[in-house]
Every structure is written in C-alpha cells, then in structure tokens.
C-alpha cells in the first residue's frame, strides 16, 4: 500500500527553475537569494583582503602598485560593508526567520521584499561595474572623504551611485520588518512574548529607515559636486570638507549598529537553546537593543576627534560615546548570566556564540579606549582602529553570521552538517582571526597609520604575523563552506527540531512548508520556556 504523504510540500520543492527563484515572493527563498549573492561578495571581499595582507608582508612594493593597493582597500571596504556586513543578518536570517519566529506566513510587503533584493543586486552590479569601466577603480577608501573624492580621476561617481541604490534596499527591508513586526505577530504573541532576534531586527529596522536616507542624500551630493561643482564640500569653492564627514557619519555610525544589533539578536537565540535555560534578563536585553538604536544616533562625531572639529564638540561626543557602551555591556552580562546553572551542551552554533562574546568584548573594550579623547589623539587613523573594527565586524557580526548559519542550516535546507568538521573550522577561524587582527593593536599603538601601502621596517614583524593569520583565517572559511556544501549534497535529513529550540520556527518541518504554518499558531507564553511546567515571565 502506498503511503499518502500528507505533509505540505517544502518551500524548496514548491517551484522549479530560475524564474521561480528570482521572481519569488516567498520570504524564505528571498533569504536564500541574499545568502547566495552575499557568499559571492564575501569571497570577493576576502580575496581582496588576502591580496592586501600579501602586499603588506614586507615593506616597499611587493605584489602590486600603490594605486592598485589603494583600490584594493577601497573595494574591500565597500564590498564587505555595503554588500555583506550591513545587509548580512537581516537580509538572510531576518528574511528567512522573522515570519517563522513570530508565527506569520510571510513579511507584510512580499513584493517590496523582492524589490529590495533586486535593488541590492543592482547596487552591487553598479559597484562592480565601477571596477571595470571608466578611468580605473575608485581609490578613496570606503568613506569617500571630500575633497579627495571630488578630485580623484578614478571611477568614484559610479561606485557612490551603487552605494546609493544599496541604501534603498536597506531602507525598504527595514520598513518591511518594522511593519511585519507591528502587524503580523501570531495571536497571543505580545511584544514581550516575542523572541529577541525579532526585537533586535525591530530596533535595526528603525535605524535603517531613519538613518539611511542621510547617506543617500550625502552620496548624491558627492555625485552632483563631482559633475556640477556645487561647492558644498570643496574648500576651493567655499565648501566645507568637515561637513561631508558629519553627514557621512550621521548615517555610518548608526550603520555600525545596523551591523551589530541583529548579530546580538542571533546570539541571544542560540545561547538559551544550548544552555536549556530561559534567557536571563529578557526585558533588559530587549530594551538594550532599543537603547543602542537610540544612543547610536548621537555618537557619530567620535570618528572625527582629530578632524579639526571644536574641542567642545569633541568633549560632548566623547561623553555620549561612553554612554552607548552601557547597553552593550548589559547584554554581555545577561548572556553570561544565562549560562549560570544551565545544562550546557556544546554545539557548533554555541561555540560561535561564545567566540562572539569574547571577540565582541575585545572590540567593544578597545572601542571604549578610543572613546577617551586623549587616547584617541594617539590611536586614531592607525592600525589600532583597523584591529578594533575587525574584531567588531568579523569577530562580532561575521561570527554571529556563521553561528546563525550553523544554527538555522538544518531548518533552511533540511540537512545536517558534519559537526566535527564544523567545530574544527570554528577553531581555525578563531585562531586565524586573533593572529590576523591582534597584532594590529600593537602596530597601531606603536604608530603605524592605516591605509599604508608601505611602512617603516620596524613595523614588519607585526605585519608578517598578521599576514600569516590571514592565511589561517581563510583556511577556516574555506573548510567551513566546504563542510556546509557537502551537507547540502550529502547531509542526512534534518528533524524539525534538531537542537531542541523553543521558538516557533522549530515547530514546522525542516525545510519549512511554503506557507510556513498549516494552522496559525497561538502563543500562550514567553519564547524560551525550558523545563517542565516552568512559568515564563511575560
């Protein structure tokens, strides 16, 4: 007798062919589209990073010219920041998991969601086109500081226009998520019964909606200034280059929180599952996300402590910068508190979460040091800063991204990966990251400026160690990706809930059906109800 399969078709088998993907309205497929695009971008950015480190293995010209090196670090920054770190977690895991976690069928605006992806791809194509057309790839650094960006002969306008288009993708995604969270939570899911990853996405969404337009306008002004000579930023025409820096950082500092808030949210999901314990301080973590989003608007000028801005402004922004550290610290304490009296099983996502706490702390604490004005005068513009933000961006956001990938992989693809290899890749990544970025703190403390094609011989030891670290790190990335690709092809089928999670995405099959829930779930308690009969605080 042939058994009748009553389970609904998974979203992966719901349609075939390219068109069923690139014109899909399914939030899960759109999440995967982002994942595929971003993996490509991440690998290109990583290749540029590898070449930069190779150039810096010895002082003087090594493999490329100064002009080429300057384009390398510009593109490395543009690709990694605009195409991977900023959109990363919200676009991939936010898209895929947000509706599942709040018990919804899709996001509120599915068509807008598809448009966001197309804008993302268009922006990325424009950025890549700036490499191959015109008078050479941009050489301004990802910050496009005026007046250099106004006078360089390279292809700045096209790259800047690419970033402008990417901004719209970000705004629309943020708008979509904020609306989804307001309108589409399952019956019974009050705000304080909502898991903390959606909380983080909610805070992030507002930052995306409110801050990104400023970047859009600023970049448009750069283009107009280059074409028409408006004279806003160009001192030769009475413009003010420091105005450009203010406008740029009014977006780009909140953007740092667009990068890190969802990462914190993902870590908050992973820890309770592996500790079999409800999250410690649910409300403290939720409100910290909102506090970071709010305070994050008020600290932009700490990127400008040596710019020539007035000393009073420097004092005020230093004070505000120190305040934004507090909600981050609260989160770290609550994560560690969640481990207390838990029943901890170590799995790959948990290892990434623990590494995140350590690496993010290194990045955050060195950030605290830079917030102090007297220290900033010394370390600003040096490798100390490069070390700091790579600990936050790679050790923080990218580690959270990799952790999320290992955490939700069975749900997204319905396959299990080899945990031993995954753990090995994690260890190699962790060692590689520290070998690559830790020497930068010492180099910066000794005075090596950043964006240097060539350096004095006394800086060589640190640079060699760092370059070797880049090789270790890249081996880790390749092993991790290889392991996941193997799992896609040959991994055994995943249970609906392989890790024992309590949030709603684990109640549906792996991979989830096209419309997520056959019956709309009704929520009666908080999201992390472990232990029998324990009442969740809500």
């Amino acid at each position, binding site marked *: 007798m042939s058994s009748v399969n009553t389970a609904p078709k998974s979203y992966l088998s719901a349609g075939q062919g390219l068109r069923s993907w690139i014109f899909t309205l399914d939030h899960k497929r759109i999440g995967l589209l982002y994942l595929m695009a971003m993996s490509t971008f991440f690998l290109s950015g990583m290749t540029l990073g590898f070449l930069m480190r190779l150039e810096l293995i010895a002082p003087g010209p090594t493999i490329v010219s100064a002009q080429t090196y300057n384009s390398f670090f510009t593109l490395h920054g543009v690709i990694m920041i605009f195409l991977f770190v900023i959109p990363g977690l919200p676009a991939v895991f936010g898209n895929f998991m947000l509706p599942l976690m709040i018990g919804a069928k899709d996001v509120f605006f599915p068509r807008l969601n598809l448009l966001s992806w197309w804008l993302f791809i268009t922006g990325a194509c424009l950025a890549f086109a700036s490499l191959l057309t015109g008078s050479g790839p941009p050489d301004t650094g990802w910050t496009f500081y005026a007046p250099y960006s106004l006078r360089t002969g390279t292809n700045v306008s096209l790259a800047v226009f690419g970033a402008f288009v990417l901004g719209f993708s970000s705004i629309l995604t943020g708008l979509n998520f904020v609306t989804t969270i307001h309108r589409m939570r399952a019956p019974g899911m009050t705000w304080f019964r909502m898991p903390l990853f959606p909380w983080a996405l909610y805070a992030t969404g507002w930052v995306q909606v409110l801050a990104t337009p400023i970047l859009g306008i600023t970049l448009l002004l750069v283009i107009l200034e280059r074409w028409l000579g408006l004279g806003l930023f160009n001192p030769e025409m009475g413009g003010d280059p420091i105005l450009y820096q203010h406008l740029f950082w009014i977006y780009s500092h909140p953007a740092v929180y667009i990068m890190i808030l969802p990462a914190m949210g993902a870590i908050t999901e992973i820890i309770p599952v592996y500790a079999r314990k409800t999250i410690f301080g649910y409300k403290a973590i939720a409100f910290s996300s909102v506090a970071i989003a709010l305070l994050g608007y008020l600290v932009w000028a700490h990127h400008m402590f040596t710019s020539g801005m007035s000393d009073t402004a420097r004092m005020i922004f230093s004070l505000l910068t120190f305040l934004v550290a507090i909600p981050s610290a609260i989160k770290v304490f609550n994560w560690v508190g969640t481990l207390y009296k838990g*029943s901890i099983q170590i799995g790959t996502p948990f290892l990434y979460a623990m590494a995140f706490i350590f690496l993010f702390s290194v990045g955050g604490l060195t950030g605290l040091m830079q917030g102090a004005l007297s220290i900033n*005068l010394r370390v600003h513009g040096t490798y100390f800063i490069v070390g700091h933000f790579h600990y936050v961006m790679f050790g923080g956001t990218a580690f959270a991204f990799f952790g999320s990938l290992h955490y939700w992989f069975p749900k997204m693809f319905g396959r299990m990966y080899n945990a031993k290899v995954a753990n090995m890749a994690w260890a190699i990544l962790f060692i590689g990251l520290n070998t690559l970025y830790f020497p930068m703190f010492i180099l910066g403390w000794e005075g090596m400026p950043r964006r240097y094609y060539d350096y004095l011989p006394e800086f060589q030891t640190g640079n060699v160690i760092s370059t070797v670290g880049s090789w270790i790190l890249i081996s880790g990335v390749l092993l991790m990706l290889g392991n996941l690709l193997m799992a896609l092809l040959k991994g055994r089928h995943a249970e609906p809930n392989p890790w024992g999670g309590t949030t709603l995405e684990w109640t549906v099959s792996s991979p989830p059906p096209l419309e997520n829930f056959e019956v709309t779930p009704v929520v009666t308690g908080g999201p992390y109800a472990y232990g029998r009969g324990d009442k*969740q605080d809500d």
Partner: protein
Amino acid sequence: MFGRSYTPIGMSDVIFLGFLVICLVLLVGITVTMVYFIIRYSRKRHPQAEQIPGNIPLEIIWTVLPTVLVLGMFYYGWVGFKTLRQVPGDALQISVTGRMWTWTFEYPNGLKANTLKVPVKKAVNLNLTSADVLHSFFVPAFRIKEDAVPGMKTYLWFQAEREGTYDVFCSEYCGTGHSGMLSKIEVVSQDVFDQWYAGETAKPVKAPDGAALVVSAGCTGCHSLDGSRIVGPSLKGIFGEKTHVLTDGVERDIVVDEDYIRRSLLEPGKDVVEGYPAIMPAQTQLSAEEIDAIIDYLKTLK
C-alpha cells in the same frame, strides 16, 4: 591623580595604561566566568537546568557600575586631552602646510623646510593647513595628531623632553603617495637650534636650486631620478625625448620641452603620459624662477 610631574605625553601614557588595565580586567572577568560556567554547568555535571528568568538587583548593579566606570573614563580622557590641547603662551609658532605628498614648515622668520628642527624642552605650536586634500599630522612619539584641512586652520602642540629624531606620518588617507608622506622632527639643544636658525636666516637669498627643489617639492615621491618606475614616469633623461601622451583622451606624440614641463607642473591633467594614472597634483606653489630651475636641472639629468 595627576600631579604636576606629568608631561602631557606622560599623562597620555598613564591614561592609556590605566584604561588598558581596566579593559583587561573586564575582558578576563567576562571570559573566565563564561568558561567556568560552561565547564561547571555542562550537561554531564548539571543535567537539569534551573530556570532563572532574571534578577532585578543584579540588573541594576551591572547597569550602574559600568555607568560610573565609563563616566570616570570619560573624565580622565578629557583631562588628558585638555593638556594636549592647551598651548603654552611662549610656544614657538610654526606654520605647517600639507600637500600631496610633502609637509612644509615655515618658521616665524620666513625660513621654510621639509623637516622640522626644534629646540628641546620648548613648547612648539604647529598651525596646520592643507593646500589640497585632507592630511593628518601624526607624531607617534608625542602621542598626537590633528588633521590638516584645506581652507581651515587647525593646530597641535608638543614639547620634546629629549633630543633626537622623531618620525612624522600622514594619518589621513590622501592618495597614491599617502604612505610616503613622511617627515622628521629633529629635536636639538637650544644652542644648536639658535645657531642653525640664525645661520639659515643670515644666508643671502640664493638662486633656486633645481636638484634640491625636485626633492623638497615632493617630485621624487612619485618620479625617480634613476629611470625606475614608481608612481609616475621617471625624470631621468626625459628632456628632449619623444613621449606618448593622452590629451583630453586623445593620444598624441610630443617632445618633452620647456613648455611641456611647465604645463606638466601647473596643469598636470592636460597631457598625461600614457600608461600612468592622471593623479598628479598641480604645483602652483612654485614660482616662475623655481620652475625654470627645475627645467634647467632636468636638462642635466641624463
């Protein structure tokens, strides 16, 4: 905490070290607690988790303590910063101009140089500006930097406590020659400085020297004198030679003559030698005599 015995540099170091210790204590504290919990509450040792949704007093403690700590850190950072910004009244005033990719120092008596010579134990105030894009004047040994902004005056000051030579870097990205935009601060005794200062000033105004100019104007940062390729074409033996240039995107052959060199210095974007980026900044600071001297020098550079 800070007696009078601290120099601004010493104070900057004390703050740095103090903050480093605070941050290390926090980092080690967090990490050790985390690792201890992972081991102590592993599923083997602790099969049943205890559900603890939170603890309000604990939340208050770890909100208030970090707040007090960071406010303290802010305060000491500000105190150290003030000493690095308050220029003593008797400071030696020097004007500094950053330009792609050299620094020019101008003393009160009009003396100009590409490296800075100052007396030991004497406050020196540098009045910074830029002739083209953003630069940043950075002296690691004195723990200070400040951007040189076109169209704007900024400043920084220092006082060297020991004689010696100290590196100056540009720490704001400024294009192809950024990492080569180096200079030195030579700190000498007051006597040596006075002698040098008087001697350099007393020298009769001499005709500009082309060989010295190609170095001091920064030409050699990108153009070698020995035929090797750096950023731009080498200057060796170019005078009177044919070269292939792009004029408004159109290729043509020209002969390097006096006119061409003058045009290349003042309007470098006009005729760009093929195969090189059009990035050379215009050298409008050079006088007509100085340009003539450079042309005469290039004629001899075979």
